[in-house]
């Protein structure tokens, strides 16, 4: 009888151990970030988020290392060589923000063949063996119009501010906006200008087209252009329409001022630089042996009237609103994709 109790204890201990397995399995694994560019505030915030979240994960023993590597020249051949070096350094997973969707496929294939898990995000790669965490820019444009349809039940005229002409992101967001307009059937796009995702360009472009436009109910934007649009409306002495913002610090600051002054109401949407941490957790989940679909979609960071203050407080001047993702967020994204 006395002998049986320890056996039962061991079984219980084993059972407890099993429930902890999700963490124990990857504790010896090393994950690397291969990043092609660090020359703007979005990328800097991306690297800071990676550093913050992964250093906590390493401390807790979720993984044994999570190092970030950035190439100096944003060149395909340089990043391909970097990825091959990371394979040789024995990393178990490589998280990539790629310089080219196609040019790295050879190196990514080498990594897969060597048994390395590859997760790409933001700048995704097309090699089938890699995981992709892509941004659904089209949905982002559509969401703007859907929000406006709720806000303005009577509809009205829209002014569209587009991004940099000829860039894929600009086409996608714009297509989403036009889809939304067609679907809701309430709005009419009466003018369209290119703001190049920059406040000063947007302001000049909007100021140029405003005199020829009828009354504008709302302005749909792509981010980095909302503040400039607001300034142009003010300078022209016209009533301020509902301007959709893009999470930039200056945009949120302006919104807060207007909200305090005359209860101005709008929404703001963009991609958080912290998406790098989402990619980290996805890589960790793949290493953990979870079944993860190859194509995942980044959730947008949306700011609304009620959470404006807290987001503004955490956004640094000149930067963009950010959020770091947790393991639970990653699991939610994976299950949303059917994993």
């Amino acid at each position, binding site marked *: 009888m006395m002998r049986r109790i320890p056996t039962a204890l061991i079984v219980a201990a084993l059972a407890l151990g099993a429930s902890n397995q999700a963490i124990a399995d990857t504790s010896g694994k090393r994950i690397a970030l291969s990043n092609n560019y660090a020359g703007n505030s979005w990328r800097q915030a991306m690297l800071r988020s990676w550093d913050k979240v992964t250093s906590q994960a390493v401390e807790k023993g979720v993984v044994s290392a999570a190092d970030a590597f950035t190439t100096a020249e944003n060149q395909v051949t*340089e990043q391909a060589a970097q990825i091959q070096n990371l394979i040789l350094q024995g990393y178990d997973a490589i998280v990539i923000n790629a310089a080219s969707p196609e040019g790295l496929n050879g190196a990514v294939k080498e990594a897969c063949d060597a048994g390395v898990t590859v997760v790409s995000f933001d700048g995704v790669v097309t090699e089938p063996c890699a995981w992709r965490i892509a941004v659904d820019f089209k949905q982002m444009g559509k969401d703007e119009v859907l929000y406006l349809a709720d806000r303005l039940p009577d509809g009205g005229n829209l002014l569209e501010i587009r991004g940099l002409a000829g860039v894929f992101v600009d086409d996608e967001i714009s297509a989403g906006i036009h889809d939304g307009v067609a679907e809701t059937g309430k709005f009419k796009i009466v003018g369209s200008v290119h703001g190049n995702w920059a406040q000063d360009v947007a302001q000049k472009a909007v100021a140029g087209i405003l005199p020829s436009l009828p009354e504008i109910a709302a302005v749909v934007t792509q981010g980095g252009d909302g503040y400039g649009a607001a300034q142009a409306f003010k300078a022209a002495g016209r009533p301020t329409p509902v301007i959709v913002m893009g999470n930039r610090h200056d945009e949120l600051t302006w919104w807060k001022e207007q909200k305090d002054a005359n209860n101005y109401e709008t929404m703001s949407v963009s991609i958080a630089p912290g998406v790098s941490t989402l990619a980290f957790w996805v890589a960790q989940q793949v290493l953990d042996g979870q079944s993860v679909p190859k194509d995942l979609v980044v959730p947008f960071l949306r700011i609304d009237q009620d959470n404006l203050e807290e987001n503004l407080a955490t956004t640094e001047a000149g930067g963009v609103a950010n959020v770091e993702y947790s393991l639970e967020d990653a699991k939610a994204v994976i299950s949303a994709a059917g994993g």
Partner: protein
Amino acid sequence: MIARVLTPRAIRSALPVIALAVILVAIFWLQPRTMSYFGLNLLLNLAIPIALATIAQMFILCVNDLDLSIGAFVSLVACITATWLHDSPLLGTLALAGLVLVYAGVGALIHLRNLPSIVVTLGMSFVWLGLAVLVLPTPGGKAPEWIRALMTLKPAYVPFPIIASVLIAGVVHFALMRSAYGTVLRGAGGNPKSLERAGWSMLKIKMTMFALAGFFGVLSGMALVGLTTSADANIALRYTLLSIAGVILGGGEFVGGRISPVGAVVGAIVLTLAGSFLSFLRLNPDWQIGAQGAILIIVLALRVLISRAEARP
């Protein structure tokens, strides 16, 4: 006996090889995983297109010119290889052959109008880049199966990149350093006046050298696509500076005529390995370009020291 072997001249030509040995030992020490068939393959495969581009640059430097368009040219070749050569091999082959002819034409233009090659090739680099964007507006395309198969070849015992490097260096060495016409070609860079007086056509020589550069540029682009599986109009822009650095590191000089094909291939490999070495050191990437430059300066400084010893009686 030892004194005769260790002449400054011999040390000088051995310098690139010594640099290669030093950096290879350092890498093996930092990352023992690289000391295997698989490791060497990954470490060196991207050096093949760089070595080919370096050889192309060497032909131009040999006739006392400089090619600032080789990176853009290799990118264009990569785009054509991943699209036309893949979809309709005949059209692709014709296009690539046409590019080699254009290169010969650039050589003729530079010679006949007596233009500075830096200006002409800088201008051409924008032409190549523009054409690359026209051929492949968004990154993509697919490497022809046979190129992919060749570049991922896994021969027994010796990794493919090593065999390819030895082959490239060997073929060019015998053609340029050991053959009679090769001597004439090299002489054109060293002393064009006397060659012309001896009855050789400088126009023909320049066109030959530029065509050879174009040919090796084409090989470089094809090899690159074989490794990356698809192309991008900006894929090889780095090669311009890397190729010049490779030639100089390998014992070549800007004055024309003084080149070494074996050294150029070794130089290209050293530069590639330098990148890996610095990344294994976990050096901040902002420092990496500087550190690559430092390696270049150290090797060149050693060369100057040796040359001084050579000049002393």
